[in-house]
């Protein structure tokens, strides 16, 4: 079976965000970019399924610029067989990304698609469902446990206060949450092999934007508060402040 895993190139979560001069995007200077952390669970799950079945192919797909090749190489080094970069120099909204992915998934003929539950830059968490709807596939988001038997899919997804067990069938898009598996490290052999694998490049499918960023800015800074004390003797005063000043208990 062919499996597509979608990966996204994002700023490291340790990044201190600065706003760019266009006031619509972040300033990329000094920012370290990484594979979206949730996409690592997606890559791992795809590789595990292929290994268990003993056959098949895992194809990584990414929408972005040449810079995304670094993230694609990371997926290849983990063991992904081949990769496609859908190129667009401009920022796309979620629907724009989903349209590009859906077209490529259709061309690949993959009935099983993995991606992270959200990318840690725009935090939209809707690309999986949009892609699935465009393809008329099923979708289970935020998955922490997965079983696939033939066409049947049983997935557990995280919701408020617990988990939902969802039953569906192939074709399906699964978006992956931390806890689904333990992503492998790329081996030296994998890293060497990844350098030899080619990344197919093609323009991303065209789309009409449905949203426009007017302005990006930093949230208002918080004033540091009061240090009440340095041991347990400060506790009564803390409780008094919480009760009388903050009125939160």
């Amino acid at each position: 079976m062919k499996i597509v895993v979608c990966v996204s190139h994002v700023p490291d979560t340790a990044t201190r965000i600065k706003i760019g001069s266009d006031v619509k995007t972040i300033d990329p200077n000094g920012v370290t970019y990484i594979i979206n952390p949730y996409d690592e669970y997606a890559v791992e799950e795809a590789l595990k399924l292929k290994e268990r079945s003993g056959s098949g192919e895992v194809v990584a797909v990414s929408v972005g610029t040449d810079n995304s090749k670094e993230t694609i190489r990371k997926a290849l080094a983990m063991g992904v067989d081949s990769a496609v970069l859908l190129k667009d120099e401009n920022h796309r909204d979620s629907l724009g990304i989903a349209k590009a992915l859906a077209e490529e998934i259709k061309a690949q003929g993959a009935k099983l698609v993995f991606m992270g539950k959200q990318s840690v830059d725009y935090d939209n968490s809707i690309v999986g469902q949009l892609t699935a709807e465009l393809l008329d596939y099923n979708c289970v988001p935020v998955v922490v446990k997965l079983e696939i038997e033939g066409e049947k899919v049983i997935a557990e997804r995280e919701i408020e206060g617990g988990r939902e067990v969802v039953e569906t069938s192939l074709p399906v898009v699964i978006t992956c949450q931390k806890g689904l598996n333990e992503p492998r490290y790329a081996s030296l052999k994998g890293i060497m092999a990844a350098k030899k694998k080619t990344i197919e490049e093609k323009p991303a499918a065209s789309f009409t934007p449905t949203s426009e960023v007017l302005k990006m800015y930093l949230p208002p800074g918080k004033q540091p508060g009061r240090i009440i004390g340095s041991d347990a003797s400060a506790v009564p005063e803390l409780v008094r402040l919480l009760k009388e000043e903050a009125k939160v208990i």
Partner: protein
Amino acid sequence: MANKILAILEQREGTIKRSSFEVVNAAANLAQKLGTSAEAVVVGDTISNINDIPKYGIQKITHLKSKDLFNYSSSGYSEAISNFAKESGFNFFMLSNTALGKDLAPHLSVKLDTACLVDCTKFEVKDNDIVYTRPLYAGKALVDVKLLSDKKVITLRPNVFKAEENENAPTAEIDVKEISSVNLKSKVTEYKKSEGKLDVAEADIIVSGGRGIKGPENFHLIEELAEALGAAVGASRAVVDAGWRPHSEQVGQTGKTVSPSLYVACGISGAIQHLAGMSSSKYIVAINKDKDAPIFNVADYGITGDLFEILPALTNEIKKVK
């Protein structure tokens, strides 16, 4: 095109959630500003508190009813709602940004050919257009966005918009539509509740522990304080990665973004990815030995000291005043 607003409400086990009443309130307020009308729809079997909806500002309610819709189904819910929306000519849809709302919004968006904006924390009507604000990078940045389509689906971050009650509200006008065939291509077969625990995403008070707690065997100090406060237990990434606590408790950029009334950070230094997930809390208390820890930069109240001494004292003091 004039907006016709539909608030899409969420029920769990037959009860409409509080976050959905925030949506009712926000939809009613927006309708008033735009000089248009808002209605509500709720999908499910029997719903115990459907008559409470008008208190939050919407009188006209449609109940899409089937016993097969008692549990969530992305295919069943999105098909039933989009069919109803097409028949009734709605073009502006509002949901809460819960696990269900976040999933349903993009499905509806494609089925109804709309723009889709999630996790909105503010919207303003300007020159007959609407400007939406939402956080990015787990709250490290904010963005103002305009939607370019006449048809829109938006989700509102829970706990941000108010659910104001009006006791003198008119009675509900409820139209029950039986859904005869439900599309169950995807269906929830079971809900596994975490045993008696409050979820950080929904809690009004959170007590979180970090590396300073030194080991999973000491987490009972956090749990006891949480219990005294009626709070949820949270954790930093460091302790989740170390396997001391489950990922469902993780607060921060690769965990949950929270904005409770009170956040108590115990033995958490305040790595940037943790601060991103909790600094929009209304009040923050930090307890940490290291007086230079970045957590004190966002804390309203701090105690620089040994949490093994301070936490039991705090738990006792809370029990006394509660």
